[in-house]
């Protein structure tokens, strides 16, 4: 992104001397194995019912012309994150060098203003009934595996992706793989009109999944039963 498009002082993409980590997801290479979702669950002991990353899919078309589209999802680590400005106690903050949007669990009051402000449903409330990890009743989200990246590793979901659909790196480094992919391919981001400047870029994302609320009036009954069961069982 060029300098003139930077509207907020919090943005670090294209700023010299700073890293701006990003993820490119090539949906053409995603086979829907959900290994990324499992790896993430294992890395963070994310409880049932909530997810830091998830892979929704949709079957579109009519037989014989059908296609199953996957759209791996996670926090977009926006360059201008609305969740950061919505948090009343600075529990959510953006790491200047790297662009990670992180959460201070010990400070979070659980007001959910960040959840309300996120256009991507990337944030969730950790339920009170976790077995091993005693971080409960605070808002959680994807951290771009801050603890791994700062040790020179890639995020768990990227590490495990067998199709190399997910690629992670520093977008401010012109020699990185993500810079190459973003430069050489037509990419999409989710809800660009919101001005959040998401740092998760998709190649080949299908509009059946990226368009807002497309399913609202075409809800399959079976999914509504699942949704009702989920609402019943999610005890915060």
């Amino acid at each position, binding site marked *: 992104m060029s300098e003139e498009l930077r509207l907020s002082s919090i943005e670090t993409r294209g700023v010299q001397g700073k890293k701006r980590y990003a993820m490119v997801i090539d949906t053409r290479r995603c086979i829907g194995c959900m290994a990324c979702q499992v790896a993430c669950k294992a890395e963070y002991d994310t409880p049932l*019912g909530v*997810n830091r990353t*998830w*892979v*929704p*899919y*949709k*079957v579109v078309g009519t037989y014989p012309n059908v296609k*199953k589209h996957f*759209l791996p*999802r996670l926090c977009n680590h926006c360059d201008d994150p*609305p969740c950061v*400005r*919505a*948090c*009343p*106690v*600075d*529990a959510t903050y953006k790491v200047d060098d790297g662009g990670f949007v992180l959460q201070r669990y010990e*400070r*979070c*009051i*659980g*007001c*959910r*203003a960040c*959840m*309300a*402000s996120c*256009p*991507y*449903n990337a944030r*969730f*409330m950790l339920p009170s009934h976790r077995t091993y990890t005693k971080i409960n*009743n*605070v*808002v959680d989200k994807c951290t771009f595996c801050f603890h791994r990246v700062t040790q020179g590793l890639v995020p768990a979901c990227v590490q495990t992706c067998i199709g190399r659909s997910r690629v992670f790196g520093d977008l401010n480094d012109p020699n990185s793989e993500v810079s190459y992919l973003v430069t050489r391919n037509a990419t999409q981001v989710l*809800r660009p*009109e*919101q*001005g959040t400047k998401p740092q998760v870029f998709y190649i080949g994302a299908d509009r059946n*999944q990226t*368009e*807002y*609320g497309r*399913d*609202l*009036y075409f809800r*399959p009954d*079976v*999914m509504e039963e*699942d*949704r009702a069961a*989920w*609402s019943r069982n*999610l005890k*915060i």
Partner: protein
Amino acid sequence: MGDYVVFHDVAWHGIYAVYFFVIGISAALFFLSALSWFREEYRPLRTPAFYGSLVLLAVAGLMLIGDLSQPARFLNVLNPAYWHMTSPLVWGTILLVAFGVVSIWYFTTLGKGDSAGKLPAMIGALLAIAIPVYTGFDLAVHQHRPVWNSSLVPVLFLGLSLISGAAVATFLARGDPRLVAALRQIMLWGSGAVAIMVISLVITTGYGGSAEELTYAFMTSGTMGMTFIGLGLLAGTLLPLLVLAVPMGRQQTGLMAAAVLILIGGISLRYSILMGPQIVQTFFS
């Protein structure tokens, strides 16, 4: 279909709408009590409206704390070292604390002479106007939410606060003819202003982009349509407006009926404005 999605929870549940309703009434009752220092017809309201305001302020504060997932950490938001001033929740905290302090100061002046309470009344009245405005900003600052992200919302919440408070004050007026007439004026013109704002909000939402269009359809049909259009706009705003405008509205029965309808409309509008855009958002997989 074979589709797979994960499900998402709404951020703010219905209790938040009840909080908006309660704190709005509390602020408006204080405003009416404060008005009694400057307008003689409001004099019978001075004490009962203030006590009502104080009780509702305490209830609203407890609701706000109870709604946190970490209730004990409400102290964090009182800590200036943690304040993040871009969040309206911080402004709200400051306003609520200031409102509480001024309410206690006002309480100490109630038994004194006629000029003693004027200063706390004036300061408190300004805070009472600011509080429903902040609750509107709680929603309006979220740029991706249809309906919420409108400069009308803080003004709408101010209007709803004023008419809901006047409706409650009608029951505290004990039939005092001058006071009842003044409250009728507030409810009549306030309901008119609320109706114009709600209709403007509905129309502009309907003519918006895909997110706005879906939210419009969701909020004007099905269960949410009954709450928003049926109870909120028709029964809770336009009907009391009609009742208050005709001669029946000048009688005690008509006024009471209009007050009840306004209260039903006040909670319904707040609930549907809070929940509608959030439920639609949960379908963004």
